[in-house]
């Protein structure tokens, strides 16, 4: 029988799905064991038990000086920046994308520019961002916005252009003004794509967030990782990495669920 026709049974499938995670864990445990056997004070690959203890401490114990639990403070700060950055990027790209997709004048004006701008490496522009937006929260949010907006805009504009011409004409024959076509024909059909776009961009958004926090900050997940790197506290770094992964996963899942719930017509079919 062809390998593509072999289908695992339910229990096998569950086992298979767990396997790579177990393998990574075991590989890590062994690597850690070897290094710790050589140098018990080794910081690079702390024992899983130690990571567990550190994670517990980070999640529950307050800072020595202030009594605040840093991890939650960091999480809150980073999520806020992410929320604003992605929120603004989504809004801007939605407006721009719709305008480019629907209005020929705007299309001529912006589409070439957006295509070029989407190729600029945003990290290299950080110094200019700082000067223009200051060192505070604004510049971090702006870095995220600048980093992800152009690509989202391009994609959304394309999606608007993909709406069948027939629908736009039909709307006009029903007396729809440009604004009504935007609000009632294009927008609802592009929104699911916007969410898909946000899901795609979140990876880059995290990247820019971490980069921005590494440059100038006093709180945030990226800040903490870069700070503790200074004394190679890999137990803290790994806890934070796993935590960020979990957050990213939950956000992705939530967006997927929202999209499914909010746009039932996408799944309608004979």
């Amino acid at each position, binding site marked *: 029988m062809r390998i593509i026709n072999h289908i695992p049974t339910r229990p096998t499938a569950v086992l298979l799905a767990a396997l790579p995670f177990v393998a990574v864990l075991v590989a890590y445990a062994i690597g850690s064991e070897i290094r710790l056997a050589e140098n018990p004070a080794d910081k690079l690959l702390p024992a899983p038990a130690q990571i567990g203890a550190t994670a517990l401490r980070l999640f529950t114990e307050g800072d020595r000086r202030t009594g605040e639990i840093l991890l939650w403070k960091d999480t809150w700060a980073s999520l806020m920046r992410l929320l604003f950055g992605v929120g603004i990027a989504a809004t801007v790209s939605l407006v721009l994308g719709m305008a480019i997709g629907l209005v020929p004048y705007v299309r001529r004006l912006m589409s070439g520019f957006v295509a070029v701008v989407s190729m600029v490496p945003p990290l290299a522009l950080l110094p200019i961002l700082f000067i223009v937006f200051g060192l*505070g929260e604004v510049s971090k949010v702006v870095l995220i916005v600048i980093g992800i907006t152009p690509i989202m805009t391009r994609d959304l504009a394309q999606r608007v252009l993909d709406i069948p011409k027939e629908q736009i004409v039909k709307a006009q024959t029903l007396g729809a003004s440009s604004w009504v076509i935007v609000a009632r024909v294009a927008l609802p059909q592009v929104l699911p794509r916007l969410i898909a776009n946000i899901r795609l961009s979140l990876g880059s958004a995290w990247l820019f967030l971490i980069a921005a926090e590494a440059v100038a900050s006093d709180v945030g997940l990226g800040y903490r990782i870069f700070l503790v790197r200074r*004394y190679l506290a890999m137990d803290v770094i790994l806890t934070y990495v796993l935590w960020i992964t979990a957050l990213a996963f939950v956000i992705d899942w939530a967006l997927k669920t929202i999209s499914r719930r909010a746009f039932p017509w996408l799944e309608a079919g004979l």
Partner: protein
Amino acid sequence: AEEKTEFKLAWSIYVGWMPWGYLEDSGIMDKWAEKYGIDVEIVQINDYVESINQYTAGQFDGVSATNMDTLSIPAGGGIDTTALIVGDYSNGNDAVIVKGDGGLADLKGKPVNLVELSVSHYLLARGLDSVGLSERDLGGVVNTSDADMIAAYTTDDVQAVVTWNPLVSEILNSSDDARAVFDSSQIPGEILDLMVVNTQTLADNPAFGKAVAGAWYEVMGLMADGDEEVLTAMAEASGTDLKGYKAQLAATEMFYAPADAVAQASSAELPTTMTEVAEFLFDKGILGEGAPSADFVGVAYPDGTVTGDAANVKFRFDTTYMQMAADGAL
């Protein structure tokens, strides 16, 4: 004993460490390594912290680092480390800079931008000490990457920064209202720039120590003579020109003569400095979870005295090879 013939040193860009790059480029290192029948590769790493991390993780046999970072990262991480060469101490290279008028005492309630947990942080702590303040009295410290310090300084949010050269001279030159209110010349000998190597490796391979020391002091000789070609090469490698580099050197107390370096390593103040550094590190939680107290890591000095935990000596000042250079025995 594990003898080997290939060694790797890591260094990062900083006034007092530029000779390491020149050693590799000019072939002087190869010459000395050949003399002792070994091979030494000197690798430039842009990110200073990363270079120490890599050394700590065992990727390198030695790394250029300050006394403070050596204590916190490799020594704190259980890697027994020896200061093979004491290259210089910062003598104004690190500075607290504020915008406009006002002195150190006026920092009260203001935010300060610096690379957290670095020697800048230590310098700030020492400075604040001197005027009876502590970090708590500030409006907070904001971790700011050294690469972006100059850009950061030009923004309105920033009122004070602590940083090192070439950034210090860059900021002081480019902005009229920038004033250095405290610098490392006020705590001479506390911020030492070292080449630290793995103690075990050094013990097993004395030739390694000899070759590195020999090569280093050959270049020191050239620099002491003001060899323009050498200095220009270093200047360009650090991204500045000869004039700029000379200005930075002026704020650096280079130990061109090995005897001076030996004297610094053997000085009576060193144990006091290291104790203070250890306390600073402990206070910031940098020594890690396993550190029950500030003297958890032992530091050994050339005369055999130890500060901190004598049972856990992980950081040693060893003048053997610098002394050999001083004696012309290499």
